[in-house]
């Protein structure tokens, strides 16, 4: 039962915001000692596992390509595409952005969009403008709400798009971890099984955006501002 201390160390260490690498190392030592191993054996066991799972970190070889494309304006181009989104209503605009964010993340382009890159300069202002067109005028509370929706939509699109790209950290973490249990999974298969959830995420979030639209169309007086 003492080996459970290793899990407690991980949970507490992450909660208390210590450097995660230090937390992992502390958990390794705790778990190993609790299992009755000597420190040299623990370091060796972890070293062997680290060496066996090196492929998890080869994802970073894509950075020179991303860096090259960004130097030639990939982010600016992405902003151009987002700026040209045809969405007369706030819900349709955000649904379009959701789809775009999922699609680019599925290509491995997780950093072409994001809160700093696209949400603040583009998506949030465009969404507010669309809502104003829709409802005539919007209250301060509704303005707040629409900004929050813009950021939320970015997160949903990123989280439930990126795992379709097979060389993302989470996919290779799964492959590496299961390897340690003697089970060999294919990154490609894992990324395929991310697709059903990606579709569900689009449908669920899209439905909520459609309802947001209906509320906006009812006008600021009828709804009396956001209620959620």
């Amino acid at each position, binding site marked *: 039962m003492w080996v459970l201390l290793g899990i407690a160390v991980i949970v507490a260490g992450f909660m208390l915001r210590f450097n995660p690498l230090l937390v992992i190392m502390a958990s390794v030592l705790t778990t190993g000692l609790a299992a009755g191993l000597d420190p040299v054996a623990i370091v060796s066991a972890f070293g062997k596992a680290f060496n066996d799972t090196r492929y998890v970190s080869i994802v970073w070889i894509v950075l020179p390509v991303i860096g090259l494309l960004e130097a030639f304006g990939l982010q600016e181009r992405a902003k151009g595409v987002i700026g040209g989104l045809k969405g007369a209503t706030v819900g349709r605009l955000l649904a379009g952005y959701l789809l775009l964010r999922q699609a680019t993340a599925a290509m491995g382009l997780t950093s072409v969009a994001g809160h700093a890159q696209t949400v603040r300069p583009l998506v949030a202002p465009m969404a507010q403008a669309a809502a104003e067109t829709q409802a005539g005028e919007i209250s301060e509370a509704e303005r707040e709400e629409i900004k929050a929706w813009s950021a939320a939509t*970015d997160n949903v699109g990123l989280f439930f798009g990126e*795992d379709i790209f097979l060389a993302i950290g989470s996919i290779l973490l799964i492959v590496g971890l299961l390897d340690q249990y003697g089970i060999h999974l294919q990154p490609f298969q894992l990324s395929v099984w991310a697709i059903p959830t990606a579709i569900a995420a689009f449908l669920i979030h899209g439905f909520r955006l459609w309802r947001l639209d209906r509320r906006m169309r009812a006008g600021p007086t009828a709804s009396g501002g956001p209620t959620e």
Partner: protein
Amino acid sequence: MITLGWVYMLAGAAFAAFALLGLKDESNPKRFRNTAFWGLLALSMWAGDALGDFGNGLLVLALVAIAGLGGLGRGTKSEIAPEVRAAHAARLGNGLFLIALIIPATALLGTLVFKHLPALFDVKQVTLISLALGVLIALGVGYVVLRAAPMLPLEQGRRLMDQVGWAAILPQMLASLGAVFAMAGVGEAVGGIIQLGIPEGSLLGAVIAYGLGMALFTMVMGNAFAAFPVMIAAIGMPLLIQRYEGDPTIICAIGMLAGFCGTLMTPMAANFNLVPAALLELKDEYGVIRRQIGTALPLLAVNIALIYWLAFP
């Protein structure tokens, strides 16, 4: 035959380049630490098999010491002016996306085709080999089409690598943690406790515990990557995969996504949930999380149902 060893050579070269180029970034006050960090990673890629288990263990301890005590830094050198980038973007248009598409397209195509060429490729590793090939092709096309300066991709890659920082090895560290958990019998221990809470023999109960556990541990730790080795050791491996013989691919792939639902609901994931609230100058610090809960909860239920239906035929 082309094996994973070739990919490690390439990755080692990339990390070595990041290490050396970082030395010249005088805008980064911690540049020597960065160089040591990426240099050790290059050594691991190139010579890991020759270092021995204890040698690799010491290498990890050194990486953790550099990152955990004092940390890495980042500079401002080599940032390209927005006007320059915008001018390029206007000229090149959506062709930039096509070059980016080369990497996933090659990885996909290579995975499907190279499998049938066992004389040329290590068939167990075709995806990662194809990925590396895709990177090389994309770089080649980039050089020809964009007429980039020879060092530009590596220097820009180095800049992005320094932005990622020590988090770059977090997934590898967590995957390795799983080995120690497995060796120490953590799974059996937690499994024993959790099974007290799940009705005996209830597959549905185990799947729900796994999905909810991923989301809850992620909320507590703010990180689905960290929750994953814990839940696999606790429920995924002993119950879902071994006792009920579920498909590990589906259990893991969708289990991770159940964790992402947790990420949407926790202030512990500050980067995603609190930073944008500040960036957008929201009065309500939790405004973004509030909008996400309505998506996260039904999606978590969908993920649990998908695991239950798809992984246990």
